[in-house]
């Protein structure tokens, strides 16, 4: 099963390498990882998506805890949360295809952020299934390049993970 871990770490050089190294060393796979600072500049949040059964997730969580710079880990998989990824897609588009592509962009509430001679760059945000859907819809036109962020996530309601 795919788990989403929200991990708070000290905002210091080398922490990302430590976390990533722990995963590879112990044979766990990171499906995606997104890092950014929080409202507190001394703390960063990593949103890590990892595939594994309960045993694997238990070990991942505990091994992460052993890293001195890891402050808090929440497995938010079963919580109500907003999860988003951002994707940039460069798709083939000659003048004849543009309107059809723009319709797809509208349907997914995505945006066109660059127009080239024979291509468009589309920006879309959403959960993983939406991102996959827009990619599938654009495939027939010929996708030249995809750049995708890892998932970031925030638990719904007034509570924060820093509390």
């Amino acid at each position, binding site marked *: 099963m795919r788990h989403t871990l929200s991990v708070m770490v000290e905002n210091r050089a080398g922490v990302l390498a430590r976390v990533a190294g722990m995963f590879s060393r112990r044979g766990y796979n990171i499906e995606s990882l997104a890092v950014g600072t929080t409202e507190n500049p001394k703390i960063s949040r990593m949103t890590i998506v990892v595939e594994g059964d309960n045993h694997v997730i238990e*070990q991942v969580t*505990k091994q992460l*805890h*052993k890293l*001195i710079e890891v402050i808090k880990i929440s497995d938010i998989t079963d919580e109500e949360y907003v999860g988003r990824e951002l994707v940039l897609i460069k798709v083939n588009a000659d003048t004849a295809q543009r309107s059809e592509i723009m319709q797809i962009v509208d349907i997914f509430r995505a945006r066109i952020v660059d127009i080239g001679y024979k291509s468009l760059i589309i920006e879309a945000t959403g959960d993983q299934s939406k991102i996959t859907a827009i990619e599938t819809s654009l495939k027939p036109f010929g996708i030249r390049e995809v750049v995708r962020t890892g998932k970031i996530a925030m638990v719904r309601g007034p509570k924060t993970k820093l509390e």
Partner: protein
Amino acid sequence: MLMNGAQALVKSLKSEGVDILFGYPGGAALTLYDALYDSGIRHILTRHEQGAAHAADGFARATGKVGVCISTSGPGATNLVTGIATAYMDSVPVVFITSQVATGLIGKDSFQEADITGITTPITKHNVLVKKPQDLLKCVKEAFYIARTGRPGPVLVDIPKDIFAAKMDFTYPETVKLKGYKPIFAGEKCKVSLVADALAQAKKPVFFIGGGINIAGVSEEFSRLIEKTGIPVTTSLMGMGGFPSDHRLNLGMLGMHGTYAANQAVTQCDLLIGVGVRFDDRVTGLVSRFAPNATVVHFDIDPAEINKNIKTDIRVVGDLNWSLSQLNSIITNPDISDWQCAVMKWKQERPLTFDEDTREIKPQSVIQEIDQLTDGNAIMVTDTGQHQMWTAQYYTFKKPRTLITSGGLGTMGFGLPAAIGAQLGCPDQLVWAISGDGSIMMNCQEIATAAEHNLPIKTAILNNKGLGMVRQWQRMFYQKRYSGSKHERGTDFAKLAEALGAKGITVKSAQELRPALEEAIKTPGPVFLDIWVSEDEDVLPMVPAGAALDEMIGG
């Protein structure tokens, strides 16, 4: 008072109670060495940085204090790596201080530059590169705190040359504030009650103790528990000394080279209580058939050890000082007399044995002789291989911290330098290093260190003219194809010892053995015994890798 970073570092080492450290100087470390010159801290110059790392480790294992090891940058630091990994695998508190090229030269592939924090991240409990002079003392304080608290382990502090030279005030922090590190002491009381309930119902319980018993210093508390309940005990290699080897309820070592009684007891028990263990593969054999009928209880300070290798039914996370005294206060006597009889029968009927021989020296008999001569009161330091297993099998360990051995990493070359550290930490105790003709060569340069400081370490080299454990596996599992495991031209270890300033004795026949051992003990200073033992001896019993504990060969 204004001083430089190196002087401030030395002062902080003193604040941490450090009076001895092990190291090797070099370009980037010169300012640090200058500060050490008249500091009053004793510096032991080993002959190789790896020796310094193992010596600091041996010191820490023998004394329970934090060991300290220093080196220069680049190759000095990378030479520590095996020593750091050895300490990490066995949870030994050592602070490694490596020098680094000056801040402005980092990342430019400068002379003697190595990314030692990058290299050692997977083999340290924590490490840090000090980037600003104002961070130096905080990093040192944190390093000692992290190394010795919770589950201990090595911490590395990498200090650039210019930070040693930077002017600063000495204000050593009194407290440590780490958001992400809160070592636990007490755990959940209700979990201890669950263990007591399980014990009350158990018909066939066994305790399995590991290095955690020695590290936590809870062997007395544990002994009270056993006297009260009469439950049989087996130990891991690292658990030796945590419970007296000659106690009637001690079944001996568990696992690959464990005793018949221990392996049977764990296979047949209905309640297995692991205390300060990590269920290493050398102990469990085939995991699916390890303690197949048992409820598994696991006491450990490190939550990540629970469920890592063996599925645990009741977990008690916390310091053993807390959990064992809790358990002791509520435990009742289980009715297990039938089980005790069965276990004792195994122990009596199937003890460890070997074929005595009057012509050749049997390696096992060397350990037995040393055991008799020292009455089980020496600190036994081993290298890795057959001699290590025979030491564990045939020496009577009576006190904690008396077996010093690389259990987790299995490092050849650990023994002699670790013995140097142990002897310096425990100057009044008799220290024996047990080695082989393979292992001793991996750090034999440290004979010079032992000689220089006239350390009365007695080293027994069980010389079987090759790599015994490798040859045993080749004999058993590779159709006697002895690939790369024979020393075609032997080394005269007595001469080697003499050349480096120690006494050397060669022992070639069984009659010479006892007198030679006695002479070694009587001789002041370091003595190296080159003991020619039978060449094709196997460590038995043996559970082949991947087999279940009750599928033993021999014994």
